[in-house]
């Protein structure tokens, strides 16, 4: 079978996902276009060089609606014969784009793809595309729908993570992100976002607070306690699903959950022949991919079965993996991952993660694959596994290996 290789990976800096965020003025199209152009320029692609652009996005409404992938291709310098496919697997959209691309290449359906995603959370609010899963009684009630924050707190309750545990993890994410930027570890991938005249708008992740300490975090009120315990009482819904739980321990807040940001990322995936044709050196092989559906109420435990599945597909064991990227949607998600596989924090999220730098939903999957690749190269290690938890109870994972 044909192998699928990563030839390049780029990402935007992440802007605060608010009206005063630096990228708030940049449209989803403009942000994504600069990723596509960067890939084209850095690899010297020309004409109908790739089969498709697979573009992840979790809120396909307004400017992110109407097949944003095609729109972004049209706005970019790519050839119009490259079509564009918008996909949505919520937080794993960016990863799913890469995995789909890899599997298309492996199956011989095209030699190369650009895969990635975008999310301008300051411009298109999370959930503004509607979601039957939360309000259609035939699904919401039957699947015991609760918001993600409650799910994260259920994980903490079920698997025994205290407020101190989740806060410590968050603090370490901030510290690591600070070190990573100090040491310019993202240098290879970061594309400065510019205006229509080429003037720079943002060249660094602006959400981080590297000096965050336990005291600051300890002062934050649990964000999901009220909606859980009083109105409308999601804890009760959770207890209907998990009748062994006496109460939900509400530990998560803005400081130990992923940040709301604007951002985008793209990865160039192709076959060996594609690289030879353009004189490109493959950086890594995409060894295996996986996706899985999981219990939708606790919702965010997907990384564990997704990892089991991707390891099986790769014919590997957890000990064979040198570095991990587990998306920091909420602290408890990553703590659960480390607990389930007995993975040491020193091998995981070595540059910090979404708690410090933010989680642009549709882009994050591609971002963490890019970070994993950069870190494997920087540390001279060989194999890496990236995984994310996904809304509505899903998970996705990718194993890459340097070549």
């Amino acid at each position, binding site marked *: 079978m044909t192998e699928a290789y990563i030839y390049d990976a780029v990402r935007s800096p992440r802007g605060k996902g608010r009206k005063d965020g630096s990228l708030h003025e940049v449209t989803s199209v403009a942000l994504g276009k600069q990723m596509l152009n960067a890939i084209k320029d850095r690899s010297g692609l020309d004409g109908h060089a790739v089969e498709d652009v697979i573009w992840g996005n979790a809120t396909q409404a307004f400017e992110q609606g109407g097949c944003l992938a095609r729109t972004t291709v049209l706005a970019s310098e790519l050839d119009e014969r490259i079509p564009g496919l918008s996909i949505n697997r919520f937080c794993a959209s960016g990863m799913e784009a890469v995995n789909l691309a890899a599997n298309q290449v492996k199956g011989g359906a095209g030699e190369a793809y650009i895969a990635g995603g975008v999310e301008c959370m300051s411009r298109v609010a999370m959930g503004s595309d509607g979601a039957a899963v939360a309000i259609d*009684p035939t699904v919401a*009630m039957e699947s015991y729908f609760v918001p993600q924050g409650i799910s994260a707190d259920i994980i903490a309750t079920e698997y025994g993570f205290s407020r101190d545990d989740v806060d410590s993890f968050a603090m370490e994410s901030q510290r690591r992100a600070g070190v990573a930027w100090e040491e310019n570890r993202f240098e290879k991938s970061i594309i400065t976002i510019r205006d229509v005249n080429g003037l720079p708008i943002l060249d660094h992740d602006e959400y981080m607070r590297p000096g965050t300490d336990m005291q600051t975090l300890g002062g934050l009120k649990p964000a999901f306690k009220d909606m859980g315990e009083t109105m409308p*009482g999601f804890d009760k819904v959770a207890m*209907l699903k998990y*009748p*062994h739980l006496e109460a939900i321990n509400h530990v998560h807040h803005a400081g130990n959950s992923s940040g709301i940001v604007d951002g985008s990322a793209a990865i160039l995936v192709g076959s060996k022949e594609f690289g030879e044709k353009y004189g490109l050196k493959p950086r890594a092989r995409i060894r295996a991919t996986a996706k899985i559906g999981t219990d939708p109420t606790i919702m965010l435990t997907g990384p564990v079965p997704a990892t089991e599945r991707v390891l099986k597909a790769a014919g590997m064991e957890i000990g064979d993996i040198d570095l991990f990227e587990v998306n920091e949607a909420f602290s408890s998600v990553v703590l659960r991952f480390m607990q389930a596989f007995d993975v040491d924090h020193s091998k995981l999220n070595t540059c910090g993660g979404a708690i410090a730098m933010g989680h642009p939903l549709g882009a994050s999957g591609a971002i963490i694959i890019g970070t994993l690749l950069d870190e494997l190269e920087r540390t001279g290690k060989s194999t890496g596994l990236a995984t994310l938890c996904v809304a509505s109870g899903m998970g996705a994972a990718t194993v890459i290996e340097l070549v």
Partner: protein
Amino acid sequence: MAEFTMEKGADGVAVITWDVPGKSMNVLSMEGAGELDAAVTDALADEAVKGIVITSGKDTFAAGMDLNVLAGFKEQGAEGVFEGVMSLHHLLRKIERAGMDPKTLKGGKPIATVLPGTALGIGLELPLSTHRVFAADNPKAKIGLPEIQVGIFPGSGGTTRLVRKLGVMGASPFLLQAKLSDPKGAVKAGIIDEVSEDPMAAAKAWVLEAKDADIVKPWDAKGYKLPGGAPYHPAGFQTMVGANAMIMANTWGAYPAPKAMLSAVYEGLMVPFDTALKIEARWFTNVIMNPSSGNMIRSLFINKEALEKGANRPEAPDQTVKKLGVLGAGMMGAGIALVSAQAGMDVVLIDQTQEAADKGKAYTEAYLDKGIKRGKSTPEKKEKVLGQITATTDYAQLDGCDLIIEAVFEDPKVKAEITKAVEAVIPADCIFASNTSTLPITDLAKASSRPEQFIGIHFFSPVEKMLLVEIIKGKETGDRAVAKALDYVRQIRKTPIVVNDERFFYANRCIIPYLNEGARMVSEGVSPVLVDHAARLLGMPVGPLQLIDETSIDLGVKIAKATKEAMGDAYPADAKGVDDLMFWMFDLGRKGRKSNAGFYDYDEKGKRTGIWPGLEEKYPHAEDQPDLIEVQHRLMFAQVLEAVRALEENVLMDIREGDVGAILGWGFAPWSGGPFGWLDMLGAAYAAERCDHLEATYGPRFACPALLREMAEKNHSFYGRFGPEAKAA
């Protein structure tokens, strides 16, 4: 005979009067619906008619749908229900559109409703389809949609129209909690339009003056927006998220009707009005076809009423109680005095000291004071009720009583002495009842010189709240005593069941195994949280451990000791685990809520704060916790097998009483319609199979009763075999 009649006035107003012959309140039949349709069609076509007023010939408007109509629909399956409901939608929609051009919205005839009094169910859904609703200023009138309480939801447009009038949030108390309003409250809530001293005159004037625009419903007009926002409007979205969660949280997910209703609301709000009615009909059909709604209607409406009306009353002259003697002014006696005096009886409340008797009477005073504060009573009523209670120590005051209820300490000796002492002063034809909850009536009757006049009247605590009264026939109890007890229960407006005398009668016989099974699981290492939650998920109002705390652990210990003594060697060996646990808690002084310590911990205010951690220290949770269904079946079968055995032993003589009594007495999963309703839903064959599994795994207390086994073999159902129709045949 006509249920609807129309009179066309010279003023151009056609008055359609609803007056079902032979009924105290109007209920809608299909014949009635046909007559209403004909009258409306006639009036709309008659050029001399300018407007229409629909009213009632009774002092109320209507009590709702004739439930036989639904039963009739149901006989023809889902299609029958759907088509039947759609025919009502067409009628009400015809009234709402009133002949107007659907495009220009012009040319319709104004139609108003006049409510002389109570308007419930279809009795409000019909008015909601008219253009303006006037009500008489009758504070006793109740206006609302109580359907959800019997396991269905307003299915003749009430759901769709009320939500469009008030928004999802605004309509939810009336749809989900079946909130009833008086006419002024209903106007304030925006359900009806006007309260008037002469509503008929006001309605006539209005229909003659109303313009085209006045009779177009907001949802039929251009640019209609749902109050509070439609489902995918940002605010409406949040409301819907909350509504889903709250229904789940409040009902523990156990009831089909509120879920179906919310689906009708959600799906209906995204389509035009007529399509929304069709969707409402589809979900309504779905609920009607669910066995839960049929069982709930049967037990909570039809059979409850039948029992209250004396379905099992023996032939005997009227036994209305005029003067009641209550022996013992403790909590039960005080409550019995209260409800009896409220029902208009003279009550003599006796205790050993005047102080104790006065304290019992003071209970009524405190209760009525609370009622006055809440506007439910008046100082005059309070004086009258208190005036009917004589608190005394003097047995001579019992002279002239026609019923005595004894509610003294649960000690056979004390009871025997009192029986003798009282019989010495009361009239020879007076009926003597004991409110014992545990002692056999036949034994207590031995102290009586007239055992045929001796009976058990078992109240539940608190008396003023609990709806059920269990009447127990001793071996020698005569028909007149039963009739007396039934007439008395009817006077105090509670629901009676009549059972034969066996240990713990019916209710406690079923409750105690439920409590024990819960405690037993804890002693086996099942998580107490799982035990109580499993019960709640079945729709039980209180988990077994919480219920033990409420009823007190010392009572449990006392009953266990007494039972052991009475049964001797027959006392089941598998009770040891439960007894050990209960005695241990008792020795620690953890007596339940009353000592602020039991299976649960409590704060100073008596609020439960969580399972007592000491429980897990003594009974560590097993590594492997059982599946939810296993815990649930242990809790359910513990109860329902007792109900079956009670039927086998003729303690229970009527399964309707077994079901109604279970729901009203201890809150047995109301959605199921009661223990026999639940077993019928399971099917005897599956139930027997589960018994075999439970017996093999947990012991002989789950052994399949012979009756159930036989029914499994013959593929019988309880209502098919023991229901009133089967009995009549």
